[in-house]
């Protein structure tokens, strides 16, 4: 199960809506081993694409060094789907390389940049196997 503060959940949704129709991406870092999603880091989608996302390689290094310095790890890796459901695609599954992370998918297909509900779901992706998990929002 993923536990997420409402503030962080809302910020991820806002990021996804803002970047629609391109995919938005980022992480939520937390203390190593804690499984606590504490610090949202919005990343630029270097692919700038409605169908693909990738962290810029230089920013990726900077982010991991920063987490290393803070004894943090990526607790959540999130991205949006802008025309399809909030479920990991074949590509998402093949490229998932953080076995300890919760992979959060947001779909903006219904309301795009506008206000309105979004699909917000979380998964574990380990060795190509996708397992959906509950998301509990904490006030």
């Amino acid at each position, binding site marked *: 199960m993923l536990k997420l503060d409402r503030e962080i959940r809302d910020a991820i949704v806002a990021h996804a809506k803002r970047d629609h129709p391109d995919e938005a991406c980022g992480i939520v870092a937390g203390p190593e081993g804690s499984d606590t999603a504490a610090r949202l880091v919005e990343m630029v989608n270097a692919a700038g694409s409605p169908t693909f996302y*990738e*962290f810029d*390689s*230089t920013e990726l290094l900077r982010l991991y060094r920063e987490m290393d310095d803070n004894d943090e790890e*990526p607790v959540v890796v999130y991205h949006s789907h802008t025309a399809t459901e909030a479920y990991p695609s074949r*590509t998402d599954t093949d490229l998932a390389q953080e076995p300890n992370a919760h992979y959060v998918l947001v779909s903006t297909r219904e309301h795009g940049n506008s206000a309105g509900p979004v699909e917000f779901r979380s998964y574990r992706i380990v060795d190509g196997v996708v397992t959906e998990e509950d998301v509990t929002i904490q006030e």
Partner: protein
Amino acid sequence: MAIEVRIPTILRTYTDGQKSVEASGSTLQQIVDDLEANHSGIKERLVEDSGELRRFVNVYVNDEDVRFTGGLETELSDGDQVVILPAVAGGC
């Protein structure tokens, strides 16, 4: 030459959980081969059968992405640091 190599979580199964290992070599190619000699199986995760670095694995030498410094032919000196990071990427 002793080079520190930072290992990402997903590849620590090859390094008995170690976050960082030492390898020797004067090019990245030699480092990768030395890693393979001590941590069997790791090379396949970094390099394609064709011999190119995998598209979704980033390797940095002293904070520079080796895609811009000659890939596996990038030269190394004593005390350099190699960082391996899986790309964070996907697509619908």
